[in-house]
């Protein structure tokens, strides 16, 4: 064999070995995904708040040592968009439960998988959780695409997911129920508030991510019912030219109109700050925003010019002005176990708390073995549960669609903090999806 052929065959052999090596690594690679088991930050000593974290479990101070109950969560985490705070907070809650008796002595183990909005990856993640990690329930999913991609898979296997929804399928399918309202119904709430202030025109601007048509249909229905003209706009994100966006919105709305935004907090902030720099914030009657704007961080960044000028729909109970037991427990758990929750007090961690609460409540009602069937039957049976984080009691139930949180607050910035502008208000049934849900769910959908 000549030298050249020798080299070629060596090349081929090496290539072969490299390929097989990688495949072997894949095949033999361990199944464990990042499971979040946050350490208690204060080593068990009770925090200064009036509520002890031991309230989260049934046997205060007794660590759970039985066979773990595996649960799974999928969350988007890519440059610019990160929802990991939500499952991380759920994990913090579960850590608290595990330190205080667990579920009948069994600790909960939450497998958290992150994804970068890649459909193939999201589908694979679901299979990983089921086939490799053998999870018996799904709680804490927060993803731009996951509900769309995986809902048939969950339906086929009988998983009833408790999530924080974004995609349409999180609210329109039988196997997903969210603790939040999602972009469409939250935008409904913001538009509803604007209409109640008797504006003459609505400009609804949202980020151009999947589902804009579905989201826009809600505000459109509300505006048309009130005979108020509505302009629907979308912006490519990340926004590179906020000035033109702000000018366009203000020009279209006019002095007696309202501009309602549906963006993630950073993008909404950029638009509002551009409007302020251009001197446009007083050129419309009011500004509205869906729930993502509901953070103290936004209130601080915006400054006093926006006091009672911007009205944000809040899907969850405002933490700053509430001091119920649940809220205090939330703050205590966040402080003691929530080191992985980077956003601190805010709607993201509130959602994680609520979802974990619901799951714990469901698990505690399971008698016998913790299987996919038994756990998900218990989840479905959750009825009128008071999470302390939303206006209504939370119900799963056996319905073809779920919008269990359909009642909201409106908040407004006031010198760096968000304060309540309007208390719990039902989202209008003029939105056909809300109407459809209330007709199947009956009184469970309404009762606060």
């Amino acid at each position: 064999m000549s030298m050249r052929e020798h080299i070629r065959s060596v090349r081929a052999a090496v290539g072969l070995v490299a390929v097989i090596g990688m495949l072997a690594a894949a095949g033999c690679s361990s199944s464990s995904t990042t499971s979040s088991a946050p350490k208690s930050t204060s080593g068990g000593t009770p925090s200064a708040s009036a509520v002890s974290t031991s309230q989260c479990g049934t046997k205060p101070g007794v660590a759970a040592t039985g066979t773990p109950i595996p649960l799974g969560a999928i969350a988007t985490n890519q440059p610019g968009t990160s929802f990991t705070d939500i499952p991380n907070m759920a994990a913090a809650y579960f850590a608290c439960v595990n330190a205080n008796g667990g579920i009948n002595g069994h600790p909960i183990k939450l497998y958290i998988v992150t994804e970068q909005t890649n459909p193939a990856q999201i589908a694979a993640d679901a299979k990983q959780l089921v086939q490799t990690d053998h999870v018996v329930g799904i709680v804490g999913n927060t993803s731009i695409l996951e509900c769309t991609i995986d809902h048939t898979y969950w339906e086929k296997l009988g998983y009833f997911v408790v999530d924080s929804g974004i995609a349409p399928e999180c609210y329109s399918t039988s196997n997903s129920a969210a603790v939040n309202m999602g972009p469409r119904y939250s935008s409904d709430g913001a538009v509803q508030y604007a209409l109640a202030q008797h504006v003459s025109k609505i400009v609804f601007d949202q980020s151009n991510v999947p589902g804009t048509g579905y989201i826009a249909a809600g505000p459109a229905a509300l505006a048309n019912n009130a005979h108020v003209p509505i302009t629907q706009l979308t912006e490519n994100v990340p926004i590179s030219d906020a000035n033109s966006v702000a000018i366009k919105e203000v020009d279209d709305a006019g002095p007696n109109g309202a501009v309602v935004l549906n963006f993630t907090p950073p993008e909404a902030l950029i638009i509002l700050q551009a409007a302020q720099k251009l001197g446009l914030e007083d050129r419309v009657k009011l500004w509205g925003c869906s729930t993502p704007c509901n953070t103290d961080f936004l209130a601080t960044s915006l400054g006093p010019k926006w006091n009672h000028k911007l009205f944000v729909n809040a899907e969850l109970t405002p933490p700053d002005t509430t001091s119920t037991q649940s809220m205090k427990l939330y703050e205590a758990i966040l402080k003691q176990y929530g080191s992985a929750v980077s956003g601190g007090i805010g709607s993201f961690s509130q959602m994680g708390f609520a979802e974990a609460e619901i799951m714990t409540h469901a698990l505690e009602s399971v008698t016998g073995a913790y299987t996919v069937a038994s756990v998900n039957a218990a989840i479905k049976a959750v009825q009128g549960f008071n999470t302390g984080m939303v206006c209504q009691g939370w119900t799963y139930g056996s319905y073809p669609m779920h919008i269990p949180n359909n009642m909201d607050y409106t908040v407004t910035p006031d010198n760096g903090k968000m304060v309540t502008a309007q208390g719990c208000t039902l989202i209008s049934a003029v939105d056909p999806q809300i109407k459809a849900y209330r007709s199947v769910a009956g009184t469970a959908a309404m009762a606060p």
Partner: protein
Amino acid sequence: MPSWQDFEPFIVSGLALGGVYALSGVGMVVLYQATGVVYLAFGAVGAMGALIAWSLINAHAPGWVGWLVCVAFAALVTLAYGMVFGPALAKRDPLVKAVATLGLTLVLFGLMDLLWTTSGGQSRAITLPTDNGGFMIGQIQVTWTQVISLALGIVITVVTVVFLRLTKLGTAMRAMANDREITATLGVPVRRVEAAAWLGCGILAGLAGVLLADLVALDATTLTFLVISSLAAALIARLRSITITFAAAIVIGLVHDLLTPIQSLSNYRDATPFVLAAIALLALSSGGGQVLTRSREEA
């Protein structure tokens, strides 16, 4: 069709946007003139510098310290890259040198997301004292920051043109862009001239980083890949003329914003830089754009 009234405010914002593109575009052409490298990492070094500045300001350092560190960081990284990879790739054609800077871009991009992780509800922002205050043009308020950015673009254009044409160092840079070997044999201290060019470009990248972080957004992805839109302006000028780059950037900014009130085109306006560059390169090039450094042309 919207009326003149509707277009008016967009002229102002369009000029501001053009100034944004001009900063990066001019910076890249300057370096290409001197070293034959299209510095595609221009946005990334500026972005990372801005993030470092943000971290310092967040840790209660005074604003000017942060911005100074940003410029210094960008200058240092650019200089280091130029000194390490410049000679290694000096004999390769401009395409290879440009692709190599993409490698630097990816490294910085990954580092930025690692070190400044995305948090759920929060975002970072840089504010400059020139943000508060400005003056009114028509119905629109113009901030001093926007004025500075546009003015800086003009100043840099003028200064660089004068520098390259009239000073000894500038002439040396132009000679090197033409043919590095011959310039070296003529006794020009090639490595020092190159270092000066890289350093100058790095300083520009740092300045652009601070201004863009304020004018656009302090977001790694946005700032890193904003350079693709600025590149359009540089391409319209065939990477040759700094003045045309500046003018092209202004035109791109104006057209982009003026399309905003036109309903049917508004959603596509982000494609303005790319479409204009494509038209300029494809439709207007009759001889097939030749690479500037003819001694290094390969297929």
